[in-house]
């Protein structure tokens, strides 16, 4: 465990997870799905399946956006406007 993580005070300091920030999208997507589906699900017996489906859709969507922007910035834009030598 790094010294930074040992010195971390929850809710007062930023958590030192800069290298693994993308993992934090999972709880964010989950809580968003729980809150949204709490008022949008008509049949509450299907609540948890809908929450997990929506969480997965959010994560896959964000992952897809990441890939799309990576291709745009690293492949398409350099091909359209090459940096001067």
């Amino acid at each position: 465990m790094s010294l930074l993580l040992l010195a971390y005070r929850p809710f007062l300091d930023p958590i030192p997870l800069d290298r693994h920030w993308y993992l934090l999208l999972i709880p964010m997507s989950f809580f968003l799905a729980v809150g949204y589906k709490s008022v949008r699900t008509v049949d509450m017996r299907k609540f948890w399946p809908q929450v997990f489906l929506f969480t997965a859709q959010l994560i896959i969507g964000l992952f897809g956006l990441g890939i799309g922007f990576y291709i745009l910035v690293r492949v398409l834009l350099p091909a359209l406007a090459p940096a001067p030598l």
Partner: protein
Amino acid sequence: MSTKPDDNLNLTAGILAVVFPGAGHLYLRQTRRAVLAAVGVLGLFFSGMFVGGIDVIDRKEDKWWFLAQAMVGPLAFGVDAYHQHALKAYPLDPNIIAAGEMQAADLERLTPRALYPGETRKTIDLRLNTPAGQMERTIAYIAPAGPGQGPPSTKSIGMMNELGMLSAAIAGMLNFIIVLDAFFPGPSSASREPR
């Protein structure tokens, strides 16, 4: 069946939903929805603070983000007030601290800010010179941290700051949807609530 939206308006539930996430649905006797809505909104809000620290809730330095975060309700304003008054400090000139007095107008021009590592928060009783005379006020100021000292909370920067602010802002926008659902509890929102 009525088509006028006013017929579905439930003012009490809406106001309660504004006061605390999920309270509107609790009033509507939809306990399960109320608890889940509160878990969603508060989970996002507090996980934002958990990731980025309390610095992600800042009415003065991140006012556009706070516009969205404020929709969580009085809780967001309470966290911000604690952040502004109990954790931030004025960047005072060391000469002013040594003299123990300054012009009140000069103090008004300064803005308290969050502290960085290597800084600590101290208080001083300053004599403030005003056109009407002198007044004494206890001011929190930023000082270099000594051994074993540190800031009461750390300034959040980079990706953790962005994710934390985003999470708390999404909590506010999500609560806006939940508040609307409490104001207008139509047949699509909760007609099959299990008893």
